[in-house]
Structures are given as C-alpha cells and as structure tokens.
C-alpha cells in the first residue's frame, strides 16, 4: 500500500512538473486565441461568431498535436530514450503522463472557448462534441504513431495516416467495387458504396460526426470503443517495439509494409478517378504497374534504401494476386445476375431518374435512391411508372442497355424496380458517347416512353401530379428577368393557374421537340427547355428576353427553369403576377 501511495505521489509530482513545463506553450496558445477569436473580430468590426470559435478549436487542435509530438519525441532519440527509460518511471507511465497533461491543457483552452461560445449564445455544440472526441482520439493516435515510428516527423505523418485509415479502407473498397462495376453492366459503385457507408461501414458514426447534430449515449460508447482500440494497439506496440530501430522511419516492419501496400492501392485508385475509363482490364493492369511502383517508392522512402528485401517482393506479389483475384471473382459472381431483368408481372412500380440521388419534396433532403423504399414512394407521392406499357418499355430499355450501353451523348440512367413481393432491384447505367456506332434501339424506346401518359407526371410532377404538389407549403415563385427580380407567394388558385399555363407550354414543347434520354425520368432540380429549331425558324432564344424562375416550398427551392420565349402562356402568367 505504501509503495502504491509513493508511486501515486511520484506520478502526481511529475504531472505537475510536466504541466509547469508547458507554461510557455500555454501563454502562446492564450495569445493566439485572444488574437484570433477576440481581437480579430473586433478589428473587423464583426461579432464573435461560430466560425471564430471553430477556428479557436482548430488552433487548440494544432497546439495539442504539436505538443504531443514534442512530448513523445523521446521515443525517437536513442539518447533521450535511454535516459528516460533508465529512470524508475516506466514508459507506459510516461505516456500516460503526456496524455493526461495534454488532455488537461486541451480541456483548459477548450473550456475557455466553450464559455465564450455559451456566453454569446452561439450554436457551437457540434464543434465541441465532435472536436473533443477527435482530440482524445488524436492524442492516443499520436502516442500510437510515435511508438510505430522512429522519427518525429514520420510520427506526425503516421498520425494523419492512422486517423484517415478508415477513409483509406473506404478508398480500397471503392477501387475494388469500381472495377467490379466495370465488369458488370448496370452496377454503380457510388450506389453500392453509399449503401455500405450508410448501413455497414458507418464512417459518420466512427468519426463521431453523426453525433454532432444528434447527441446520444451512443456517442460515449463509440468514443470509448475507438479510444480503447487505439489504447490497446498502443499497449501492444509498446510491448513489442524494437527500440534498437529508433532513428529509422518506422520501427515495425509489418506496419511499414502495411503503409506501402495501402499507398499501392490508393495511388492507382486516384489515378483511375482522373480517367474516364471503364475497362476493368486497363484498371487492373494500371493497378499492378502503378501499385508496384508506388509500393517500391514508398518502401524506398520508409526504409531509406533503394534495395528491396525479398520478403517485401513476396508480400507485394501475394497482395496483388489476392486483390486481383478477389476483385475478379466478385466481378464474375455479380456478372451472373447482370442479365436478370424482372418480368412485367412481378413489377409493382418503376422509378427512373438520370441521377442516383433524389431531392425529396417534403424537406428538400437529398438522399440516395438506395434508401428509398416503396413506402417512401407512396408517402412522398414520388412519380413512378405503373402502367404495363411503361413497365414493358423500361424492361426493354434495361435489356437493350445490357446489350449495348453506348449512346450518342454521355448521360446516366438509374432504374429502381419495386417488386410486388416487397423487394427492389436497382440498376445504374453510364451511357457512353459513341458518335456513330451507338445503340439506335434506345432512341425508339425513349420516344415510346415519352409518349406514355405517365411521362409528363414523372418529369414535371409539380405541374402534373397534384398530390405531389400538395405536400408543399407556402409555394412561391422567384422570378428573374432583365427588368425585375421578385419573389411572390402564390395562393392555391394561383398555383393551379400557373400549372395550367406551364402545362400548355409543355404540350407545345413536347409536340415540337424530342428530348431523348436527357429528359427520361425524375428530374431533381433544374430543367432547361432548349430552343426549338425547325428549318430556318429558331424559337426560344432567351439571350434578349431572359426569364428564369425558381419554385419554392417554404425555404426550400424545389425546381428552377429557364423559360424560353415560346413558353408564351407561362410568360403571360409571370408578367401578370409581376404587375
């Protein structure tokens, strides 16, 4: 018991000593915070707002990271390490002391910023909720990264790498799924990754961002779990660290190879995103070549040697084979269901859009199609195809796109089948640009689809679908022309008159213009009615007679249109309204 008390007293004394050593940093931090959070807004004659508090929090972040790296610098200098390790104050106690002293330091300055924010009644809770969690995790990560590294600069970089590691993992998954989506027509990597991030690999929860707006007990659970995992890794690393490697960039061979392998995927992945190429063989070949080169360069930097060890080459070989095999196997497994098109009899409804996201009329939220179920379709009165003719046409379109997804301009088509058995099937097609050798069958299907009764409801639900419009409240029109810029709230009757006027013009437009794929399905926001060219006649030049309208539901902008000159009914209505 006496030994324990002595040890605790010793730790307390050392902690106070360590905190006192930080007095210069404390003064510097205080000066920086006073200047940036208090004096700068005064000089700029503005109030202290959330942005200034957030900037202060960012400054505390920087100071804490730098301080942690300085405090853990003894792990990267054999002289210092020998000195401190030979003292009767164990390495783990010293690490704890650094963490506690920096946590107290951070708490003090975060506390000051919080008091300022609360005193000024600013909405800063999310900054502090997420910020405090991040600070705790980053301090622990700095300890872990400092143990993994044999050099302080590398420890700083390793901290950033480790903090971003969940994002790197997403990058790896994205790259793999991207190649799979190139193998299989109708699969969209964004939709799949969106689903994974929303439902399986919840990054927003992992990074605590989710709790910034909706604080719950789960915040503490996730934070505790994150911290425990990092702490456990830190203890393991401490136990197995080879201190004779101090001075090298990385003290753990496994971690060194792990970094190199991560970069060997990330670089080809970033490279592939810069190219508009959907050929999976090209991507795999570039992955193997660029990945190997990146791996070599990463190891040259990390090992400070141009010679590769045999084990490094073997590891790369095994990794490449495993990655390529997994991607190809997944691709070819998914390809087995590529040609599955549901039968018309099985389909309840079909939602089509040129986007894989949808803006909801209710609250203007922008959500992935993957998240919308048929109940949502019904509740939100979203426009769907339900006639047998349209179902058959969409099925034909689907089959035709599988056979040949090449069109005469770039566009995308998302199709979601809501089946009668309650399930849904989502497909996404990238239509490539082929000037001559494109799939001409598509033109016919588009034209047939546009001739259906449902088409106008789907493209212009605001005007053609009353129950959709009824979900909106306080409808207003913002009108912008050369001579005026007004926002006018419409009565129910005015809304109906407005819709009637627009519908007449759309009828005229539809009779004279074949939109093709560009106007297939639900349009999220902006709709442009192009000029109508017929022989020498040219209608719709808006350069001199510019009119742009936005339809608002409360504070949410629902749609925006450029109103061409031949939309005479609409223009007359707008002119009357303006007067």
């Amino acid at each position, binding site marked *: 018991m006496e030994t324990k008390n002595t040890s605790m007293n010793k730790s307390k004394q*050392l902690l106070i000593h360590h905190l006192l050593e930080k007095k210069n940093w404390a003064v510097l931090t205080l000066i920086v915070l006073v200047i940036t959070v208090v004096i700068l807004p005064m000089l700029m004659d503005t109030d202290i707002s959330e942005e200034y508090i957030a900037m202060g929090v960012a400054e505390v972040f920087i100071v804490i990271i730098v301080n942690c790296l300085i405090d853990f610098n003894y792990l990267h200098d054999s*002289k210092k390490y020998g*000195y401190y390790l*030979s*003292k*009767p*104050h164990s390495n783990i106690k010293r690490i704890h002391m650094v963490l506690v002293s920096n946590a107290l330091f951070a708490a003090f300055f975060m506390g000051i910023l919080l008091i300022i924010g609360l005193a000024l009644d600013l909405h800063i809770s999310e900054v502090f909720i997420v910020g405090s969690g991040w600070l705790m995790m980053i301090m622990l990560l700095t300890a872990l990264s400092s143990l993994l590294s044999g050099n302080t600069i590398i420890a700083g970089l390793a901290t950033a790498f480790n903090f971003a590691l969940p994002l790197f993992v997403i990058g790896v998954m994205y790259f793999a799924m991207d190649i799979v989506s190139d193998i299989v027509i109708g699969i969209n990597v964004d939709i799949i990754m969106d689903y994974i991030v929303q439902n399986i690999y919840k990054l927003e929860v992992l990074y605590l961002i989710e709790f910034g707006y909706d604080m719950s007990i789960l915040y503490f659970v996730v934070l505790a779990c994150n911290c425990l995992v990092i702490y456990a890794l830190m203890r393991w690393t401490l136990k197995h660290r080879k*201190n004779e490697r101090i001075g090298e960039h990385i003290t753990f061979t496994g971690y060194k190879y792990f970094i190199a392998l991560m970069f060997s995927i990330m670089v080809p992945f970033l490279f592939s995103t810069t190219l508009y190429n959907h050929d999976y063989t090209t991507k795999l070949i570039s992955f193997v070549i660029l990945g190997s080169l990146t791996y070599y360069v990463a190891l040259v930097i990390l090992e400070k040697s141009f010679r590769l060890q045999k084990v490094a080459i073997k590891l790369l070989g095994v990794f490449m084979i495993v990655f390529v095999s997994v991607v190809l196997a997944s691709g070819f497994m998914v390809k087995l269901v590529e040609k599955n098109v549901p039968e018309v009899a099985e389909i309840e409804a079909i939602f089509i859009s040129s986007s894989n996201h949808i803006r909801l009329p209710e609250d203007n939220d922008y959500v992935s199609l993957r998240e919308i179920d048929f109940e949502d379709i019904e509740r939100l009165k979203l426009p769907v195809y339900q006639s047998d003719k349209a179902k058959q046409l969409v099925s034909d379109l689907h089959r035709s796109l599988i056979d040949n997804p090449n069109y005469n301009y770039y566009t995308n088509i998302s199709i979601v089948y809501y089946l009668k058995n309650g399930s849904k099937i989502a497909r996404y097609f990238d239509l490539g640009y082929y000037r001559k050798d494109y799939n001409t069958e598509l033109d016919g299907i588009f034209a047939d689809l546009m001739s259906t009764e449902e088409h106008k409801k789907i493209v212009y639900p605001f005007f053609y679908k009353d129950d959709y419009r009824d979900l909106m409240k306080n409808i207003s029109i913002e009108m912008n022309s050369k001579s005026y810029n007004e926002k006018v709230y419409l009565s129910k009757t005015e809304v109906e008159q407005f819709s009637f006027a627009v519908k007449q013009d759309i009828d005229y437009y539809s009779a004279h213009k074949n939109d093709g794929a560009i106007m297939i399905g639900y349009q999220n926001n902006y709709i442009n009615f192009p000029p109508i060219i017929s022989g020498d006649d040219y209608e719709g030049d808006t350069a001199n007679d510019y009119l742009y309208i936005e339809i608002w539901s409360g504070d949410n902008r629902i749609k925006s249109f450029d109103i061409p000159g031949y939309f005479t009914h609409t223009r007359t209505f707008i002119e009357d309204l303006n007067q």
Partner: protein
Amino acid sequence: MIKIIELKKSFDTSHVLKGISLHAEKGKIYGLVGSNGCGKTTVFKHIMNIYKGDSGQILYNDTEVPNNEYMNHIYYVQDDLFFPTNYCLDDLFEYESMLYNTMSSDKYNNLKTFFKMDGSKKLRTLSKGQKKQAAFILAIASMTETLMLDEIVDGLDAVIRKKFWKVLMSEVIDRELTVVISSHALTELDNICDKVGILHEGHIVREDSIETLKEETKRIQFAIKGEFESMENEAYEILKVTLVGKVHFAVVRGDSDQFRDDLYVQYDVLLYDELHMNLEEIFVTELGGLGYGNEEYINE
C-alpha cells in the same frame, strides 16, 4: 546482484550478443571490457530494459524482472549523455529527486563542491567532460544500490578521473555500492575492479576476479642454453613466446609452477623470472589469442 544468463540478441541479420552470461556481485565493481563494437553498450541497454533480448535471462537479486520495477535501485549513466533541454544541474537534481526516493541533497551538494560544478549553469553549455561529471554527481547522489556506468571516464582529464575513482571507491566501501562499469581505460580499471568480464564479438570470453586473472595468466621471462621448443602439458597453456636477444618472454595461462618445473627438467635454465600482468596485457593477450589485433602493418 545482476546476473545475465545466455542472453542473445540480433539486430536484423547481425548477431550482436551470442549467448552471454555474466554475474556482478553486490558491493563489488564489475568491469566490462571489450573490443570496439563488441556489444558492451548493448549489454547495458538490456540490463536497463531498453532493449529486449531474443532469448536468455536477466536477474536482479536472483529475480527475473521483466519490467522496470528494479529501476529504483539502479542508476544508469549512458555513454551518449542526454540532459533535458534548458536544464541546469540543480533543475535536473530537482527533477530526478522526484524519480528516485533515495536522492540525497547532502551528497549532491558535497559532490558539487568536490567537483567544483556550478549547479546553475545550463547543462547544454558544459563541455563533454563537465557533462560526464554532472552525470556522475547525480548518479552518486541518487544513492541507489547499483550504478551502471558506460564509458564514464571518457573525456575526463587525469585529475578529474582521480577524483572520480576516489569517490567511487569511497561509496563502494561505505555503503556496499555495486558498480558495473565499462571503459577502455584498462589501467585504471585494473586498480579498482573486483571482477572483469571480457566481451568480444558477442561472447564473454573471460570472466573472473582480477586476482584470478592475474594469477592464472603470467608473463615469464627466461633464458636457456640452446633453442626453446614448445612444451605441452595439460596444467598450463603457453599463449605466446617471443625472443628478445637471448631472453624469451612467454605468456602462460594455468599452473606456472608446473611450467617452471618442466622448463628446468627439459632445458638448462640460465634465468627464470615470473612477472604479473596488468589488465591491459591480459586483455590484449586474451583477444590476441582470438586473432584480434594480430595483423601486421605493412607500410608500402
């Protein structure tokens, strides 16, 4: 006190310690000597738990201590000194007083006066020799039961070295201080060490008390009628024979009395004299026997 049993350590593919064993006893001074790069500092760092051995045991008071619980009882002065930035000796003493319960301010002040050290001077401004003195003062003032001193006299002038040995001897006698010291100043170690371990290429090639080493290995000068041809006997081993004029100088390990008797039986001995070797000569002889430093320099 400190016992190392079959300690092995490799740095990647380089085998630095190939199963060394040593035993430093309580209240004695153990000299760890060896060729350059033989692994002396590595041994110290293993004892201080800075490096972890691949296999083998390190015992302190016959108990294997894997963590640093025994650091309370040991003060280590490393070859490559480090002092916290911007500290003066007094600051460092204050800091280390928080770490060692046994730190004595009386001893500290006494030693500061003895070595004429200015406690308020920033340590980074001191010379290499002064830094060594500062480290030594703190080591003695810590009043720990064991000192580990790696190349401590390196950089000290002769006067300070004398003072240094005086203090160290006094502490060993007064309070049964155990010291493990490494140095290349073998002449000085000769006078103070109780026991010596000779480390070479990862092995302890000899470990014994200084008396035993000196008793076991002797230099014998003799002159005989006729030519000397080597003699063989299990009781002794002739390590080296050189002829200077008509006098032979032989280094003999083992029973020198038996060597003398054999010599007198086989030769007409004109002159015979046994000389004690110092530590440096024993060191050179031992390592020379392993082929270390035997190369002839040819000036071309």
